[in-house]
């Protein structure tokens, strides 16, 4: 378990850009953290690092949003509203998780049993200040 101290959004950006460089098709990045911890914000920087040109917005409404303008496709999930894994099958999540792009999943703890064994997990916690975050990474 790697623990990273993020002091502010600039650090989040640096972390996201660096991570984006390493992402390859089939990678699943699971983000676990409460409201406002910056899951969508981190995803925006990952998208930026991949060279995505569209605006990345919170996918809470449609659960998954696809971005194909970057180096590899980015599939952005927000499973906040999912209670039963069946809904994930309806969306066809396997086509994304084992597909041609990288997946980022917000609220991944909601679908823990569906995450691939080699999923990269980041637990995000708030730090001492309003902009500090602790990233606990399994990779």
């Amino acid at each position, binding site marked *: 378990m790697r623990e990273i101290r993020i002091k502010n959004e600039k650090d989040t950006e640096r972390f996201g850009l660096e991570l984006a460089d390493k992402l390859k098709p089939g990678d699943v990045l699971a983000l676990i953290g409460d409201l*406002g911890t910056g899951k969508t914000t981190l995803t925006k920087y990952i998208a930026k690092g991949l060279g995505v040109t569209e605006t990345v*917005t919170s996918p809470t409404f449609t659960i998954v949003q*696809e971005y194909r303008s970057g180096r590899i496709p980015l599939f952005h999930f927000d499973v906040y509203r999912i209670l039963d894994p069946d809904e994930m099958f*309806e969306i066809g999540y396997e086509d994304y998780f084992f597909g041609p792009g990288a997946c980022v999943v917000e609220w991944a703890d909601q679908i823990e049993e569906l995450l691939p064994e080699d999923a990269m997990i980041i637990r995000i916690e708030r730090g001492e200040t309003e902009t500090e975050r602790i990233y606990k990474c399994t990779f």
Partner: protein
Amino acid sequence: MIDGKTLGLAIESSCDETSAALSLNGREVLSNIISSQIAVHTKFGGVVPEIASRHHLQNINTVVDSCFEEAGEKLGRKLTMSDVDFIAVTYGPGLVGALLIGVATAKAYALAAGKPLIGVNHMQGHISANFIEHKDLEPPFMSLVVSGGHTNIVQVDRYNHCISLGGTRDDAAGEAFDKVARVIGLGYPGGPKIDKISKQGDPDAIRFKRVFLEEGSMDFSFSGIKTGVLNYVNGEKQKGHEINVPDVAASFQQAVLDVIVTKAVWAAEKPKRLAVAGGVASNSRLREMLTKECEERGIELFFPSPVYCTDNAAMIGCAGYYKYLDGGIDDLTLDAIPGLAMDA
């Protein structure tokens, strides 16, 4: 055809509600049945799309049957599928499982009865809700679309054709209401709960930051205010203070609406007409603020009644009617598109 008027059947099932409607010439609603599923959702403290879509399947035939019954009673004559001139259905944006049920049902009816099928963009449906009660409203005008999934300023050029001038860069307005409601313990649905409790609160009690973005931008950003409320609540807790829920709700609502109203009014400056749409269009404070601002600027303001602000099939029937007049008939390969762009 009924008395020389086009009879449209519409089906909507993009998110929480299953709905079916019959209308004449798009704007004259004969029936608009909405099987609200709020009760199911509240039990779990949030929207549960998996359950919602299961209910769509359970509900849809009953909802369609009662829409024929109610319209028949209104006209004083029996209506059947053979009287219908077209079948309109929402094909996106929305939840894929939910959309599929509506689309499959509409296709089945269209095939069985040999009727034209019209796929409707849910967001254009929301905008068209304004045509139902405002008989003289016609494009062009500016529209503000605010809902759980959208916050857009949209230029409506003609029926079923619009250009989005700006939208949210992170959370939608309705989403921010839902999330903040959760943070301050109000539960689901957040929009109406915050609207209601804010009436007892002071909108100036806490100064949350208004995010206007770059000069001239029609985009929105609400993730900062979500975090702002969280930080405020956590800070008060740490100090051992009780939070004043009505004050926090009212201050949050005011901060969000200040930005929305400023940009909407600014966008409507030239067309001098603004039509508001989407679930958040029911918010009473938003209505109050827009009414005042538009009056001062000589902008004509349109709102649907609350029943046409929520997801409903009558608005889909209205948008579908104009698409039908335009010859916009789809074939049976029509597919649900969950991420359909608002101005597609």
